[in-house]
């Protein structure tokens, strides 16, 4: 670019110099301009810059009177120039039309070069028009200026063209493009096939999973039936022994039998809880609008009915509605309330709260009971995990059940606690 400007500068100063030296374009041909007037005007011209008085024609005669023109040569010159001008005007007009129609909407590669060509051809055309006009109207000043502009544009176009050559060379031929498209299509087809294969594999896996699930159901059924029956025998007959043969057993013997009975009854509970847990994972969930507040109130009321020694105060936030599976949610609420009651039963003034957090759809049930050590917070929701073994009753499956219910609702559950000050269970349901 710098080079270009340097060149233009040289060009301009060269032309100015020529004007200063008083060289007139036609003087060598013996044109019929009055010398005195011409000289005076040349002198004044020396101080003129290249682009002023563009339409001043006083220094030159019209071209017809400059040298000897035969009409044939003159008109050949004039008509050819006009035809060239017309063509040079038509070509950029067509190019601009094409650019407006296609270029703006779809984009033309190298559109700057394209526009440069338009300007370049237009400028060239104008020089030819002026050349023809000069036969009557010797606007040499204008012609010179126009030629300079044309030269600048042409030169600029040359450099611009050189600059884009590497990019043009990269341009794909239609055949090449077609080949590319074919390659891509092939790639896409292979990818599609791979995807289809993956889908099939996934389907197969799903079927296996379904089968496994079926087996699991059969298993839980047999656990329910087959394990409970012998337990019932163990429990029933140890009780029968205690009742009918207590006179033949000393205290230790009776104690052993009681232990057997207790253990079998506890095992029955564990099996039942485990079955409940597996049922929760198995059944479809059907969401409906449920008033969580009402549900909590109902569960609390049932607890108050069943536990005459219940001392806790309940603080239940009203008008909390959720979209959830009613049956499952009830089980979760029962477990959480049950826990809150259980672990606050040894506190002086047990307070159990239910509510919704301000920020999001996070619900909580809190108590001011025993709480738990936060380092066990991950173990809290595992099946058969008990943090207070011996102190409180339970199978260790309640929170595992709650977690599974919440998870089945695509929700999350977590807990916070300060040991000895209570625990808060937070959960979401979607």
């Amino acid at each position, binding site marked *: 670019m710098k080079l270009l400007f340097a060149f233009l500068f040289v060009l301009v100063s060269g032309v100015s110099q020529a004007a200063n030296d008083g060289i007139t374009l036609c003087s060598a041909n013996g044109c019929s301009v009055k010398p005195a007037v011409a000289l005076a005007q040349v002198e004044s011209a020396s101080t003129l810059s290249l682009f002023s008085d563009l339409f001043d024609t006083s220094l030159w005669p019209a071209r017809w009177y400059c040298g000897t023109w035969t009409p044939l040569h003159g008109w050949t010159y004039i008509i050819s120039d006009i035809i060239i001008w017309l063509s040079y005007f038509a070509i950029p007009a067509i190019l601009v039309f094409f650019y407006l129609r296609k270029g703006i909407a779809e984009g033309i590669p190298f559109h700057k070069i394209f526009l440069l060509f338009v300007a370049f051809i237009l400028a060239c055309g104008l020089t030819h028009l002026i050349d023809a006009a000069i036969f009557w109207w010797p606007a040499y000043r204008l012609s010179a200026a126009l030629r300079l502009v044309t030269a600048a544009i042409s030169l600029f176009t040359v450099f611009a063209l050189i600059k884009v050559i590497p990019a043009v060379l990269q341009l794909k031929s239609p055949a090449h493009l077609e080949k590319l498209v074919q390659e891509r299509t092939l790639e896409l087809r292979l990818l599609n096939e791979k995807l289809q294969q993956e889908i099939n594999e996934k389907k197969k896996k799903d079927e296996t999973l379904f089968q496994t699930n079926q087996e699991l159901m059969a298993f839980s*059924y047999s656990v*329910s*039936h087959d394990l*409970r*029956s*012998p*337990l*019932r*025998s163990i*429990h*029933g*007959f140890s*009780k*029968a022994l205690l009742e009918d043969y207590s006179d033949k057993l000393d205290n230790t013997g009776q104690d052993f039998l009681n232990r057997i*009975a207790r253990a*079998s*009854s506890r*095992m*029955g*509970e564990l099996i039942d809880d485990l079955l409940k847990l597996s*049922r929760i994972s198995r059944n479809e969930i059907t969401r409906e609008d449920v008033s969580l507040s009402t549900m909590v109130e109902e569960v609390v009321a049932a607890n108050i009915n069943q536990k005459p020694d219940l001392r806790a105060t309940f603080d239940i936030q009203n008008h909390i509605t959720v979209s959830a599976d009613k049956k499952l949610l009830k089980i979760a609420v029962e477990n959480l309330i049950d826990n809150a009651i259980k672990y606050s039963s040894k506190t002086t003034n047990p307070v159990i709260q239910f509510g919704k957090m301000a920020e999001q759809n996070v619900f909580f049930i809190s108590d001011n009971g025993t709480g738990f050590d936060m380092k066990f917070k991950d173990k809290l929701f595992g099946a058969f995990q008990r943090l207070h073994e011996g102190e409180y009753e339970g199978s260790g499956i309640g929170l595992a059940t709650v977690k599974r219910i919440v998870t089945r609702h695509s929700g999350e559950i977590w807990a916070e606690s300060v040991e000895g000050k209570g625990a808060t269970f937070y959960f979401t349901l979607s």
Partner: protein
Amino acid sequence: MKTAKILLVEDNEDDVALMLRAFKINKIPNEIVVAKNGVEALELLMGEKAIQPCLVILDLKLPKINGLQVLESIRENAVTRDYPIIILTTSVEQEDVVKSYELGANSYIRKPVEFEKFIKSVEQLGLYWLFLNEPNPKYHERR
């Protein structure tokens, strides 16, 4: 007064023994007839020496013909179709419960593991079906 029979369909001998014990403890006077499988049960109800029990206590998991099939047969037979039938079983699989009621069971009770609860269940069951409930007068053999 001659008491009507109760038909107990149960393949597990332990459960039969415990059931008899529970009846004894609850002082239920009715004679208990035991069928150890489905075939025996249907024979006792529809065979040549058919009994007309005032109550059928039916387990679901039975050898040969299972409890649901026995239930279906009883309900399909013109003579036996009005018998009160209690399903007393270990399973509380939802499917079983639904199917039992669909086939016309009058009641569905799950056997508790703890004997005390079991005795309690039998007591309530006896109290309701044998004393509170008014039986169908067309079976004159009833209590």
